[in-house]
């Protein structure tokens, strides 16, 4: 008789559950949920954990983090690691919004400074930075310029005068994946992306002005340049139409080359890491990653220009910029042996502890900053990466709260107008693309960020450093 996946879970220890290996699975599944949340775990997301565990060359576990929910093919909030010789790379394991990511900026302003001009700040940022559906970029470029951005990322834009060296040094991969090859990106992907550099897009993407409400570890907070009541700015966006099309293009190519008949789900299409097609996808994916880094670099530049008009003495620095949807080559310990592997993080954040070379020098002694955006009305968190994450989750942690309510039921139950009123009551000013998009992204459609952060902190796969509260929100 068929047993629900939920019923097959075995508790390993607090906050860790295993989905035992069954026929077809090469490794077991591991989900990092609290006892409270495991009761509400989606059956289909566990099925996806199982499906991923069936892919060739997967190592150790198919992982679901505390913010996991159903995705397409791979679950969102999933991590899977593959052997370089026997393993695969999968566009569905990265997601369509390649390098959907978060950048945090610190300022020398305080909460009180922002409150004095709260509405003005919101209006000015909303005017300057295009957001929502179909609002194109003010940044014009030709194809050869776009190619340089695809290969050079945020670093290239800084060299062109759109920022400071520290901006890209404080970005994952130093703002540029060096394996990017623009020749691997299709003409259609270029056409979809060329008018979108420097735009937030819609859906869950946003730009927020927040303040540091609480500090949990003052020494590390100091290293990250954060202190209580300081005003900070968070940007959440990705590689726009360009990245979406790259994913789609390579899904089609891989289907043609390898067929999908044997896969448990068509969205799990993949190519061996060592194959030409696997390499081509990786090099194209790197272009989308760079496009997303450059996207946030340009937005950072515009934020500086805009804020300077209102606060002439303002200084704005990048704390860090982290990737959510990405495949990368990293070294990890597999059964006690150091091995270079291909890590897929889909709706997951890298969380490296002290000492790793990939971390910017300024943070290397303490671990990388981990940025976890909450929902519009709730807190966001800054955490620090840990050695424990490297042991338990291949150096990964959650990427946000994770949705619990579908967009269609949100639309039935929540009016955007009410969401705005609620936020205003809490002292948060907001501008959104439409009432509908506001209702769809209302705080109640997400899991409780406090619970999600509590789990990762208890597990030790990232540790709390600071809690941020929003003051002004521009929503796509």
């Amino acid at each position, binding site marked *: 008789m068929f047993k629900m996946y939920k019923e097959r879970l075995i508790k390993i220890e607090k906050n860790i559950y295993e989905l035992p290996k069954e026929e077809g699975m090469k490794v077991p599944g591991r989900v990092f949920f609290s006892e409270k949340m495991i009761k509400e775990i*989606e059956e289909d997301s566990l099925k996806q954990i199982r499906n991923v565990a069936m892919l060739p060359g997967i190592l150790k576990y198919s992982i679901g983090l505390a913010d996991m*929910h*159903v*995705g*397409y*093919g791979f679950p*969102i909030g999933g991590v899977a690691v593959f052997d370089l010789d026997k393993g695969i790379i999968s566009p569905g394991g990265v*997601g*369509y*919004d390649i390098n959907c990511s978060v950048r945090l900026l610190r300022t020398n302003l305080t909460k009180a400074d922002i409150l004095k001009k709260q509405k003005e700040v919101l209006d000015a940022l909303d005017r300057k930075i295009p957001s*929502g*559906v*179909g*609002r*194109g970029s003010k940044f014009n470029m030709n194809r050869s310029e776009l190619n340089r951005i695809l290969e050079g990322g945020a670093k290239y834009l800084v060299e062109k005068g759109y920022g400071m060296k520290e901006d890209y040094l404080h970005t994952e991969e130093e703002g540029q994946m060096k394996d990017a090859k623009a020749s691997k990106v299709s003409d*259609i992907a270029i*056409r*979809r*992306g*060329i*008018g*979108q550099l420097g735009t937030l*897009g*819609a*859906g869950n993407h946003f730009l927020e002005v927040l303040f540091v409400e609480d500090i949990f570890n003052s020494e590390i907070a100091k290293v990250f340049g954060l202190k209580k009541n300081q005003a900070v700015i968070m940007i959440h966006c990705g590689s*726009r*139409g360009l990245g*979406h*099309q790259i*994913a*789609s293009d390579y*899904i*089609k190519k891989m*289907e*043609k080359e390898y067929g*999908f008949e044997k896969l448990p*789900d*068509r*969205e799990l*299409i993949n190519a061996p890491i060592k194959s030409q097609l696997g390499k081509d996808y990786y090099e194209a994916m790197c272009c989308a990653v760079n496009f997303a880094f450059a996207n946030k670099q340009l937005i950072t530049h515009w934020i500086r220009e805009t804020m300077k008009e209102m606060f002439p003495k303002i200084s704005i620095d990048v704390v860090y910029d982290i990737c959510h949807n990405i495949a990368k080559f990293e070294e990890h310990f597999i059964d006690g042996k150091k091995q270079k592997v291909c890590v897929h993080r889909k709706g997951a954040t890298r969380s490296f502890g002290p000492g790793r070379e990939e971390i910017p020098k300024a943070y290397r002694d303490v671990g990388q900053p981990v940025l976890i955006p909450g929902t519009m009305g709730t807190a966001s968190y800054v955490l620090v990466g840990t050695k424990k994450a490297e042991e338990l989750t291949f150096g990964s942690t959650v990427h946000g709260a994770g*949705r*619990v*309510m*579908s*967009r*269609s*039921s949100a639309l039935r139950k929540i009016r955007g107008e009410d969401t705005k009123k609620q936020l205003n009551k809490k002292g948060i000013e907001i501008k959104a*693309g*439409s009432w*509908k*998009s506001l209702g*769809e992204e209302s705080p109640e459609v997400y899991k409780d960020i406090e619970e999600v952060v509590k789990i990762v902190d208890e597990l030790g796969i990232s540790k709390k450093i600071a809690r941020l509260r929003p003051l002004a929100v521009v929503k*796509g």
Partner: protein
Amino acid sequence: MTKVLIEKFKFLEHTADIKFKAFGNSIKEVFENSALALFRVFYDKKVEEKKAYKIKVKGNDLESLLYNFLEEFLVLFDSKNFLPFRIKNLELNEKKFKISAVVVGDELSNYNAHVHVKAITYSGMFVKKQKNNWVSQVLVDV
């Protein structure tokens, strides 16, 4: 035999993305109604019919044909700022998996569209005949 009127499409529950089923008395109709469901995701009110594009797509099976057909509208949306509303002159070759059609709609910037569809996905996708009617299922990433 009288033609039975059936609903064109319906939206299903999905936590993060948007899922729909479309229906049709013929394979042509289910493709057309799938496109209309996608247009409804973009924008749920009337769009003026001021611009038109001719589209031609190919696939290897019915699902990839539907995927490629629907993807055309995302490309027009992003690269031409085009908000589609209606399909005209749809021709479908079931054996060669080919479609041609004309799509009419308007400049996107004239409307306050609220959803940007990132991609069509193959997750749970199907196009099939059930008794006398055709039905498709599509999950789009938003």
